[in-house]
């Protein structure tokens, strides 16, 4: 009994204080956000644009992982195909910008849709289309569980990948450049610091939505669907629609991150849709801590920093990534957040 108790308490030796800002967990979380905000601010003031863009990259990868974490961590749906939504968001940004650039329509039948270089239009389209795609993929995939679910989500994402690869209009495997970054009213999105602030707001919003939603009735039902779907069904709530809605929201968040990511790079290619991308997002979620609100942020910082620092020294940096992942899985099962901030206690 004592052993059980200590395992479920937030911190050995300290009482569990839910919602406290200044316990260990609160400090770690504030620290991570401060790091992500202040480091690029310093770089911006010192004129190091490269590091501002690097922070934007971390931010958007983290935001994509926040979406995936909603599916994997909170919903127990191990999707190995979230690159489909990340890439779709990217292609929507790219294709829309491409048509806005040469004033051609995206489609002329059954109705004429012009291109647009407005981020607001692109984000709206991304939410709609990623939602629809996830509704279709989820409706089929969620009829399976376990390894079948992993494989079927992977299969759908690979279909998207090969489709993009073989569609010459938008560059096929060569990809498509975005010559001028898409715009927002009143601000100059071309400024690295401004763009970082947009990305940072997106990440904060995605995390706030996740946090708030998981405390709501829907979150309670989703948690029960993950922990014990028999209990949920016995109570009279069908788990399937709950999971499906969570899957769709998850895809929308990842898709929005993808749309912004394309704008950050000024370029899209099928790489954004490939299973490597799905795998990277999954690794980030696991590194950071599955089902932890700040897990994707911690994971993305670790991943991108390793990629940048170790990748600068050796092209075999993924060997070291593999070692770190191995250590996390073996010795810190709750990821970086579990290690830094202690175990989560459900109250």
């Amino acid at each position, binding site marked *: *009994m004592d052993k*059980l*108790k200590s395992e*479920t308490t937030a911190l050995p030796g300290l009482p569990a204080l839910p919602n406290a800002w200044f316990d260990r967990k609160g400090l770690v979380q504030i620290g991570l956000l401060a790091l992500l905000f202040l480091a690029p601010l310093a770089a911006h003031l010192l004129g190091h644009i490269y590091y501002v863009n690097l922070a934007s990259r971390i931010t958007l990868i983290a935001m994509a992982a926040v979406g995936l974490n909603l599916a994997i961590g909170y919903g127990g749906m191990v999707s190995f195909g979230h690159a489909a939504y990340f890439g779709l968001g990217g292609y929507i940004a790219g294709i829309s910008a491409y048509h806005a650039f040469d004033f051609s329509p995206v489609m002329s039948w059954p109705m004429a849709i012009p291109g647009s270089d407005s981020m607001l239009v692109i984000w709206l389209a991304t939410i709609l289309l990623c939602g629809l795609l996830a509704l279709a993929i989820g409706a089929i995939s969620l009829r399976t569980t376990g390894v079948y679910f992993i494989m079927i989500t992977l299969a759908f994402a690979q279909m998207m990948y090969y489709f993009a690869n073989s569609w010459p209009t938008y560059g096929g495997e060569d990809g498509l450049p975005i010559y001028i970054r898409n715009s927002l009213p009143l601000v100059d999105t071309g400024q690295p610091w401004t763009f970082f602030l947009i990305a940072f707001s997106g990440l904060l919003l995605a995390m706030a939505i996740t946090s*708030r*939603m998981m*405390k*709501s*009735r*829907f*979150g*309670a*039902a989703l*948690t*029960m669907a993950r*922990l*014990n779907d*028999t*209990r*949920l*069904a*016995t*109570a*009279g*709530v*069908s788990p399937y629609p*709950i999971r499906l*809605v969570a899957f769709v929201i998850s895809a929308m968040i990842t898709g929005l991150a993808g749309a912004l990511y394309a704008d950050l790079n000024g370029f899209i290619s099928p790489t954004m849709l490939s299973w490597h991308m799905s795998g990277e997002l999954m690794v980030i979620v696991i590194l950071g801590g599955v089902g932890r609100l700040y897990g994707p942020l911690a994971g993305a910082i670790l991943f991108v920093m390793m990629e940048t620092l170790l990748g600068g020294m050796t092209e075999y940096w993924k060997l070291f990534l593999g070692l770190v992942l191995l250590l996390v899985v073996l010795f810190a099962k709750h990821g970086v957040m579990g290690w830094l901030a202690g175990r989560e*206690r*459900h*109250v």
Partner: protein
Amino acid sequence: MSDVVLTLNHLQKHFGALQATRDVSLELKRGEIHALIGPNGAGKSTLIGQIAGNLKPDAGSVHLAGQEITALSVAQRARLGLGRSFQVSSLAEPLSVLRNVMIAVQALQGHSFRFWKPVHRDESLLAPAREALERMQLSHRADTPVSELSHGERRQVEVACALALKPRALLLDEPMAGLGPEGTAHLTDLLETLKQEVPILLIEHDMDAVFRLADRISVLVAGSVIARGDSAEIRHNPDVREAYLGD
């Protein structure tokens, strides 16, 4: 509305050559505990599956409060007022006792697609959940994770979850299994007071509890009901003694 809450009409279920349920009919009336007993392999679990909705019968029908529910899913049956507990307790272990019961209250209210209001200060969820715990004398454990509960307490939580659904009928699958004598006595007392409010179909191995609690007993052997009656009748029925009680 009639006195009969739950009706099984001529249920049949085969698994290949094995006939697990043979023409079983059964009624559960308001205010009673109807016990279903039978030796291992008699087909009790198969029958429960058909009542709860995990299994579809090959023939026959199940009615709850006059409505046919034979083709409905587990969740749909629960929404119509069928509460159940499991032979092996089925709760979300990392969550607190209160959280486990709250999901039933939430289901009863039918609003699971609400994304904004936090449940942890939603009195419309908390109050009925606390009340159900109070009924099962578990209030002092409300904030304890289920993983820290004793076996007997988990049984009580299961019944509290079922109660929170404000069910028309309760289906309790071996609620005494694995309980010590003290736990059994405690739960027996609780069920006895409960039956006035909700009729209970009780599947149980503990004969003392069954004979004490049940108003009627049906004995299932090899898929069919071989005897039905009150405690005294069943105790003295020669077929039952031979098939089940072993003397």
